[in-house]
């Protein structure tokens, strides 16, 4: 018989206000096997833990039940405390009476009754708990970063700095991401390329970092410390080793009419291209959808001109298999295409552009070489209207938009407005806003400068309709503070469209078995305390893939993710989850059912000698589980027809004891 101690946490008033904690302690104290039962204000605090440790010692406890918050919050805390007192950590169970009781029920009697039942179920389980010992698994000392934007770049540089190998997988032909497209950065107005491209060069030159550009993650197997990843290197029809990036091919290719995605489709590029001058790697790529040679077999201009002999029209995709100890998702974002908002004219008026398109129109390396000219007639716009929150802050059921604030638009719009007023003082700039949100160091000061020094007209209200007539954009908007409907004849309208996670993030999350929220942002392990880790061990989050962020925040988070990765890679061995499957050899009939359902290949079969009747020996084929590989899902336990397979920590008997306790009441 176990000697069980029960500890009821008040969680301040979080639990105690709804659950009669004294009554719970008293009721559970009467359960068989319970030798000690008490309540305390904060069980997770230092003194709460001491209380538990003292009780373990004084009452010679063999099992502990803590009735508190979710085990996903403090199970580890309490298990560690028990371990310090010499009790096997797996003899501790949690009854979740906060998230599942006090926070969702109002009636004290009802909540108290439920808390007692959940406590009883945990006690019933602990009666059947056995001490478990965690095994160890080795750590592959290399990290994978998926995405080569500023987030991925910073994470990779920091990991490499600590001496570990890092691979970056980037689906585009170059690293750099969205930041490479941006003209200037807030709140300092320094040029994005000037601060980004040196970092790109650092990446290229770092011996510890390997870039897989124009590549995608194909599959992920394994678990923390031991991931096996297949990377698809897409055929770029140019030998990366031979190409010197001289660029002759990109100047002479006769196919000139390919929309240039780097310039947001505002101009064209050739079918063979290097996205921009500072690309890393600086290697050309052939766009097979447009290349005349690839499509018709007639052309070959680039091949003839290439002095390095790098062009290879027959190149195929290749798959590279690599092993990693940790994986960082840095898949980034895209600004939403506002095609759903044609009341604002984006789909039908050329001079209605998105903010990222404006970045290109103002960038010295952009299609207009930095002179702000509007797309339709290449004339200088004299009246510009900015519209905030396009597609952000929508009702959750509004399928057109996103329910969240995109966070960066207020600041970059202030930046755009300011830059335009500085460079072209003859331009009138209007910004239609719902709220101006500028939390951040020197951010509100920046916005105020746009208003006070640069004379940008901030109007509280929204734009309702944009119509193009004879080259003029007729903007109809509300000015809520004056109670007017405004009619502005504008030359250019700029939409601050919502940030949305990159489309590839969803499939990558599935491969990583990392969870996502309803907006397709990666979920962090804890919203406040573990913001750069995924709930899946060994998977870390960097940048906007976790939620909208500006550059300073992205870089901070990227370094934080790197710190977490380094912490993991610095270990030689990882403690495994001891709640793994185990096979009872006496019951196993070697049928292979368990092996077929195991997603990790943790089950193997061996022929073993058993003693038969009349002193004979039998050779039988039996299953055995590799505890370092098993992740403890339990699929095999249900598949086993003879009941030989069971899961430690979640055994058949333990779960059924919980069922019985819940149904007993």
């Amino acid at each position, binding site marked *: 018989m176990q000697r069980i101690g029960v500890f009821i946490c008040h969680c301040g008033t979080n639990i105690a206000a709804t659950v009669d904690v004294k009554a719970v302690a008293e009721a559970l104290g009467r359960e068989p096997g319970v030798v000690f039962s008490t309540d305390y204000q904060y069980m997770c605090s230092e003194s709460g833990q001491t209380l538990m440790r003292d009780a373990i010692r004084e009452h010679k406890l063999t099992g502990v039940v803590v009735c508190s918050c979710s085990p996903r919050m403090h199970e580890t805390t309490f298990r560690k405390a028990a371990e310090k007192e010499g009790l096997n950590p797996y003899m501790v169970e949690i009854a979740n009476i906060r998230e599942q009781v006090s926070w*969702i029920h109002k009636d004290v009697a009802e909540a108290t009754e439920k808390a007692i039942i959940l406590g009883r179920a945990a006690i019933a389980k602990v009666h059947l708990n056995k001490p478990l010992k965690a095994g160890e698994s080795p750590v592959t000392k290399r990290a994978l970063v998926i995405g080569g934007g500023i987030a991925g770049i910073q994470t990779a540089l920091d990991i490499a700095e600590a001496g570990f190998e890092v691979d970056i997988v980037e689906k585009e032909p170059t690293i750099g991401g969205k930041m490479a497209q941006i003209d200037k950065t807030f709140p300092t107005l320094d040029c994005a390329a000037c601060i980004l491209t040196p970092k790109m060069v650092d990446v290229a030159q770092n011996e510890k970092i390997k870039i897989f550009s124009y590549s995608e993650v194909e599959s992920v197997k394994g678990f923390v410390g031991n991931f096996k990843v297949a990377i698809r290197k897409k055929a770029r029809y140019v030998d990366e080793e031979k190409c010197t990036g001289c660029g002759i091919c990109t100047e002479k290719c006769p196919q000139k009419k390919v929309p240039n995605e780097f310039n947001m489709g505002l101009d064209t590029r050739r079918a063979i291209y290097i996205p921009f001058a500072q690309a890393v790697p600086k290697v050309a790529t052939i766009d097979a959808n447009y290349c005349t040679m690839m499509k018709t077999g007639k052309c070959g201009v680039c091949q003839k001109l290439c002095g390095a002999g790098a062009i290879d029209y027959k190149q195929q995709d290749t798959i590279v298999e690599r092993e990693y100890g940790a994986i960082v998702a840095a898949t980034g974002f895209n600004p939403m295409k506002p095609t759903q908002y044609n009341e604002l004219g984006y789909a039908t008026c050329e001079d209605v552009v998105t903010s990222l398109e404006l970045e290109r129109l103002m960038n010295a390396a952009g299609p207009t070489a930095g002179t702000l000219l509007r797309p339709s007639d290449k004339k200088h716009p004299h009246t510009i209207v900015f519209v905030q929150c396009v597609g952000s802050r929508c009702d959750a059921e509004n399928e057109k938009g996103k329910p969240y604030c995109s966070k960066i638009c207020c600041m970059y719009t202030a930046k755009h407005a300011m830059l335009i007023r500085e460079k072209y003082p003859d331009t009138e700039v209007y910004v239609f806003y719902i709220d101006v949100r500028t939390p951040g160091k020197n951010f509100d000061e920046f916005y105020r400068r746009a208003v006070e020094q640069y004379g940008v007209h901030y109007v509280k209200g929204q734009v309702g309709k944009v119509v193009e007539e004879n080259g003029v954009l007729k903007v109809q908007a509300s000015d809520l503070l004056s109670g007017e409907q405004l009619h502005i004849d504008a030359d250019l309208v700029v939409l601050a469209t919502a940030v949305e996670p990159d489309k590839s993030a969803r499939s990558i999350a599935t491969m990583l078995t990392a969870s996502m929220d309803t907006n397709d942002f990666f979920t962090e392990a804890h919203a406040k305390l573990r913001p750069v880790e995924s709930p899946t061990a060994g998977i870390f989050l960097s940048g906007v893939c976790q939620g909208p962020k500006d550059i300073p925040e992205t870089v901070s988070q990227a370094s934080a993710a790197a710190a977490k990765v380094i912490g993991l890679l610095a270990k030689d061995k990882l403690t495994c989850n001891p709640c793994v499957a185990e096979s009872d050899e006496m019951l196993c009939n070697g049928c292979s059912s368990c092996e077929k359902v195991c997603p990790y290949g943790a089950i193997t079969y061996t022929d073993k000698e058993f003693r038969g009747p009349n002193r004979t020996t039998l050779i039988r084929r039996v299953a055995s589980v590799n505890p370092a590989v098993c992740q403890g899902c339990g699929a095999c336990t249900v598949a086993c027809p003879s009941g030989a397979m069971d*899961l430690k920590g979640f055994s058949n008997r333990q779960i059924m004891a919980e069922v019985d306790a819940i149904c007993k009441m």
Partner: protein
Amino acid sequence: MQDVKEFRPKIVAFCCNWCSYAGADLAGSSRLAYPADVKIIRVPCSCRVNPLFILRAFQRGADGVIMAGCHPGDCHYTSGNYFARRRMTLLFSMLDYLGIERERTRVEWISAAEGAKFSKTMNEFAATVAALGENKRLEDLRCKK
């Protein structure tokens, strides 16, 4: 003196640790109520739920059993919920055979981000089970003390 007591069903909810249990936590931290009749048992994955656990619950007097796991394709263990789904389909036909109303058992996919769905599902399920009344089908198999 004793009035006729309002029927309160006993409902067991098996929730996988990674999605649905976390969804229940989110329902809790968002203060989205559901009936106290629902009691959750945490399992590592929906594929850990042996159909026998569900029969055991009915045998011991549960009026409804719900199993919740990660959305298909999003299983923390890659494929566990697919196994669970297949096993539950088989169990359902067996429950039909036993004469236990189909509505007393349910399978739902609830992610860690779907606190609202968790609460909504549990409210609906509890109402359905309450409307069906007490589950007496396996009573004679119950161990009577």
